[in-house]
């Protein structure tokens, strides 16, 4: 790891990180409010039979329990977009974007190996995601405490929720970085990463709302985000292991490919 590069990466992303953390904390605080104020009303509405039961489960989250609300907040597009700023945007730009602009050349003309540069960026993005996910859970916890529903979950399990989220978005970040070190231009790196994320999201949401499409869910990384299961004590270690394995594979790929590839002059 290169401390100078690490320092500059954190300094140049500090404002962005602060904004994302504030937004995620705000979003995280909304879910317990919705649950505490409208959860019972939603339950009655569903029990009336107007909405099929299957349609009440959105990607493993719901508004009928605090655990389901926290899970819903995690898998909601708002959280996905905010976390993707780092997991996809920052990572694809880190090498492919810098390469396209020509600034990667200035960096790699210094005595810093490509592996070291990669590890520095990887550590940075995992740090950004860890802080952003923590901000979401802090917002949720504070809000749940204010609205007196915190007792419905075992707060000692929240670090596992955080770890599960970090593994999911960490795996997207590792895939994005692998694409970033592979391509000379931002568009293909961004395109491939977004395709994996969006198709996976579509599979997971479709499978959660439509029983006939459930078979698609295991092919989505989002399926292994088990927020509600963790908070209700039903977490499956396989999901953690799978996300960790995919992350490691993407990291190893990047560490092998990046130092071996040619970096031609910017066109």
């Amino acid at each position, binding site marked *: 790891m290169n401390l100078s590069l690490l320092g500059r990466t954190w300094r140049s992303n500090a404002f962005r990180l602060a904004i994302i953390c504030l937004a995620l904390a705000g979003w995280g605080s909304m879910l317990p409010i919705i649950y505490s104020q409208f959860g019972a009303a939603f339950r009655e509405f569903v029990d009336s039979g107007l909405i099929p039961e299957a349609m009440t489960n959105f990607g493993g989250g719901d508004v009928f329990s605090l655990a389901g609300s926290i899970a819903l907040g995690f898998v909601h597009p708002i959280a996905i977009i905010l976390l993707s700023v780092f997991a996809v945007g920052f990572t694809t730009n880190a090498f492919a974007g810098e390469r396209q602009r020509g*600034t990667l050349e200035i960096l790699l003309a210094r005595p810093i190996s490509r592996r070291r540069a990669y590890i520095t960026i990887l550590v940075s993005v995992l740090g950004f995601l860890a802080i952003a996910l923590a901000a979401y859970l802090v917002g949720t916890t504070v809000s749940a405490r204010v609205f007196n529903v915190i007792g419905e979950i075992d707060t000692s399990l929240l670090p596992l929720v955080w770890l599960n989220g970090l593994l999911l978005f960490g795996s997207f970040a590792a895939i994005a970085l692998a694409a970033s070190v592979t391509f000379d231009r931002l568009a293909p790196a961004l395109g491939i990463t977004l395709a994996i994320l969006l198709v996976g999201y579509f599979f997971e949401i479709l499978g959660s709302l439509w029983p006939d499409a459930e078979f698609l869910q295991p092919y989505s990384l989002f399926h292994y985000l088990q927020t509600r299961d963790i908070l209700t004590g039903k977490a499956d270690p396989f999901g953690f292991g799978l996300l960790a394995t995919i992350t490691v594979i993407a990291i190893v790929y990047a560490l092998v490919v990046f130092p071996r590839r040619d*970096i*031609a*002059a910017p066109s």
Partner: protein
Amino acid sequence: MDAVETVGLTKHYGHRPPPIHPPFIHPTGIVRALEDLSIAVHEGEIFGFLGPNGAGKTTMIRLILGFLHPTDGKASVLGLDTARNSVEIRRRVGYLPGGIALWDSMTGVSLLDYLAELSGHKPVRRDELCDRLELSTRTLHRRVRDYSRGMRQKIGIVQALQHDPPLAILDEPTEGLDPLMQRAFYAILDDLKAAGRTVFFSSHILSEVERVCDRVAIIRRGRLVALEEVAKLLDRRKRNVEMRLTGPPPRLEGVPGVTGLTVADGRVTLQLEGDVGPFLGAIAGAPITDLTIEPAHLEEAFLEYYADADPGETEDGEPAPAPARVAG
């Protein structure tokens, strides 16, 4: 020890086309960017690397800095193998890329600080370089996005030289500089040479190579076509001579070094190569009213080396065998 040494350095891009061509797919084939390049840059000299756009100059620089991996051959910089010690090489080298790109959101001074920090060396020459290139403190505190092309190039020069590296690799360094700044830059190069630093200098501007370099390598379609001292290259060039006379012209046929003789209306033009003594002896006593001997320019040497190149030829073309005249 040579500052830079390459032995049979070769770089091909792309892949061999498949035996069967699928429809709608046009294989790129192999691009021979650099072919069997062997040069040695001595310590303490300013070495010019000359060639038109696409000849392979930047490929060569990127190979010795470890951005590219050679297809064949090997290279060493300051005694270090480029394949195994590229990080250590970059610690000792100052590099100015061609068409430099900088982080636009940073100020000039924070950018220079950051790059010096990454280099691991104190920017001992920054103040002097900024002063000579007229980069004021006020300018350095503006964001790079507000800089003109020339100012970016000045920042590029400062970042390459601010830590006083033993070897500077400069890819078309005067690009975007106005004539005054070009002159200031040449003076900086003169000082580097006086201080015993080595400069590897790539350019397609013949006049600046002629002005600042001790030796020059001329590259064509990835192949070395000449490597020799600039002074010797210039010595061998034909001078353009024009005389006006009021009487019969002197007998110049057969005078050593004289070619292309034309006589018309009291005006004699010719090309003169090598020692001028025999020519001066031959025209002594002739009724000359005006005599012009144009100094030899590297451009003519350069054009001669490229004279047999096909018009519009690019580096993508299959390299024809070129006679290599290697000296020095």
